[in-house]
């Protein structure tokens, strides 16, 4: 297992290298001169030159890259031009709401998807199965924000059970914190649930047809044990992959949903910085999101080894 982990981690190095180059190039590939775009059309040539010098835009590209990477390793992603604070601080500020929302959405998604997918798999081919999968197709097709708006109308405006929008940090109390996240979590979670449920169903159906399931039944095991012990664990790798992917997208910030519910998360940070051409923030945030995505995939890969001995033992021999 140890060498498996080490190999997985080493394989990240080239990925991260490429990611960092691509992210860095954003500033140079976008049309127009970053400094003049930032300062607007009325800025004088002098001001632009001064900003260029300040940002180091007059240095050779590779030098700029190394300078930036050096900073990244020290936790310095540069400064936001508009917010007048370090990019790292801005990210940390917006990361809390996004992580909270991502975790809550993912829990909602898994709680809906796994039982539904398993049930549909057990009833495969029946009307129940087809109904469930039809509903899940609907869940994938309806945009999250639209569903979010429905929720606002019903739960917040008509029933007045939940606040319409906004965000309270965890420090304001757990219920206060969660109260504001319930609707966005449901809006995002149901969409993810549809994906996970479909994968759960197909993976379970495939596994249920394997011979060892027959062996398990022939042993006299209860169907519950056949399903949850023998089938689910074998079916779990593709399910876990989808869970990892959906979680990755959530951490990247569900920009539209965050906007609908007015949650100051990473998605909003990215949108605002793009609007303002705040290049350092865009660069830093995209880098952070990509690295998180890569790390989530690493964790998923490592969990493969925990679930399936063939994965962890093959890598060793």
């Amino acid at each position, binding site marked *: 297992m140890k060498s498996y982990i080490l190999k997985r981690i080493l394989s990240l190095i080239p990925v991260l290298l490429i990611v960092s180059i691509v992210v860095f190039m954003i500033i140079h590939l976008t049309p127009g001169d970053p400094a003049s775009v930032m300062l607007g059309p009325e800025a004088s040539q002098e001001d632009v030159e001064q900003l260029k010098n300040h940002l180091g835009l007059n240095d050779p590209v590779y030098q700029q890259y190394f300078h930036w990477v050096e900073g990244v390793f020290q936790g310095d992603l540069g400064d936001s031009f508009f917010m007048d604070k370090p990019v790292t601080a801005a990210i940390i500020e917006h990361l809390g709401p996004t992580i909270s929302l991502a975790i809550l959405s993912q829990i909602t998604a898994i709680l809906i998807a796994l039982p539904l997918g398993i049930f549909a798999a*057990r*009833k495969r*081919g*029946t009307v129940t199965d087809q109904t469930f999968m039809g509903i899940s197709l609907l869940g994938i097709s309806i945009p999250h924000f639209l569903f979010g708006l429905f929720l606002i109308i019903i739960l917040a405006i008509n029933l007045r059970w939940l606040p319409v929008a906004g965000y309270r940090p965890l420090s304001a109390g757990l219920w206060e914190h969660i109260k504001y996240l319930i609707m966005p979590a449901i809006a995002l979670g149901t969409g993810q649930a549809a994906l996970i449920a479909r994968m759960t169903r197909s993976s379970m159906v495939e596994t249920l047809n*394997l*011979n*060892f399931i*027959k*062996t*398990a*039944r*022939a*042993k*006299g*095991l*209860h*169907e519950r044990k056949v399903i949850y012990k*023998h089938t689910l*664990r*074998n079916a779990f790798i593709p399910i876990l992959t989808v869970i990892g992917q959906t979680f990755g997208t959530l951490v990247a910030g569900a920009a539209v949903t965050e906007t609908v519910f007015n949650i100051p998360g990473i998605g909003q940070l990215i949108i605002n910085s793009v609007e303002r051409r705040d290049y350092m923030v865009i660069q830093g945030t995209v880098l952070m999101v990509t690295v998180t995505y890569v790390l989530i995939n690493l964790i998923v890969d490592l969990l493969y080894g925990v*679930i*399936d*001995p*063939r994965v962890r*033992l093959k890598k060793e021999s």
Partner: protein
Amino acid sequence: MGEHLLEVKKLKTHFQTERGKVTAVDGISLHVDRGEVLAIVGESGCGKSVTAQSILRLFEENGVTTYDGEINFEGKNLLEQPLSEMRKIRGNDISMIFQDPLSSLNPVFTIGDQIMEPIMLHQKLSKKEAYKRAIEMLKLIGIPAPEQRVHEYPHQISGGMRQRVMIAIALACQPKLLIADEPTTALDVTIQSQILELIDSLRQKLDMGIMLITHDLGVVAQHCTRVAVMYLGEVVEEGDVDSLFENPLHPYTQGLINSIPQLTGDRNQKLSIIKGMVPSLNDIPKGCRFAPRCPYASAKCIEEKPALETLENNKRIMCWHYKEIEGAVSNAT
């Protein structure tokens, strides 16, 4: 004659498919006694495996299978038992081993876990005691260094070893009946005979009845007491091994025996085969089911279905012309 350990009476297994209902096993009757080995032979698609799995009602969970007839095991009709009662019988009184030992073992659990599972379930032993039993079982089936093997996973051991593990799982609760569904088909020839000898010696030790499903007539001749020949969901001939091999009555049985390659005799003689293929279950011939492929088929065979006749020596046969054919075959030799 007393009660049989297992007595199958007019068993029918129907599957509901997209193209309508098919009857994979169509009214077969069989019995197995303690200590004896009944072989079920026939080509692929004749309903051998379906028969085997019907006895444990393993098709139940998919919800598209129905059964008719009786499966009497120790006086109880299994088809009338509730599923909870079936679960007590599965793996405890009746065990089963399958064709492909790799895919029949769960890849994510250790061998030990998988052997311990039925022991803990049926004999209500603690984990520790079950672990000891598992090691004893591994010793019994001849796996070296059982204390290490229990912690290994199926993919870490060889095919022959895996089938031994399957046998250990099946025999862990000392069943009265073992159903072996082509246990050696996926194995090397040398391993095949080892496994069959192992099953044979355990049969004597535990006084089990065995239902051995195979298409290998060599295996049948060596290891079985009685043989039932199945064709397209029906038993077409049944009898003691010796009489069946010496004097096969049904043209299908003759065809099967003749298609075994001979090591002695005229090398230039062509290997005889049964012409055609087993028809689909959606397309069952009206008269004798074997008639379209039978070299002796008459108009009667195509029109009218023969009944299963019982002859002397517990022999049973389903053929219109077995008497004439018998004469023809003995004249020819």
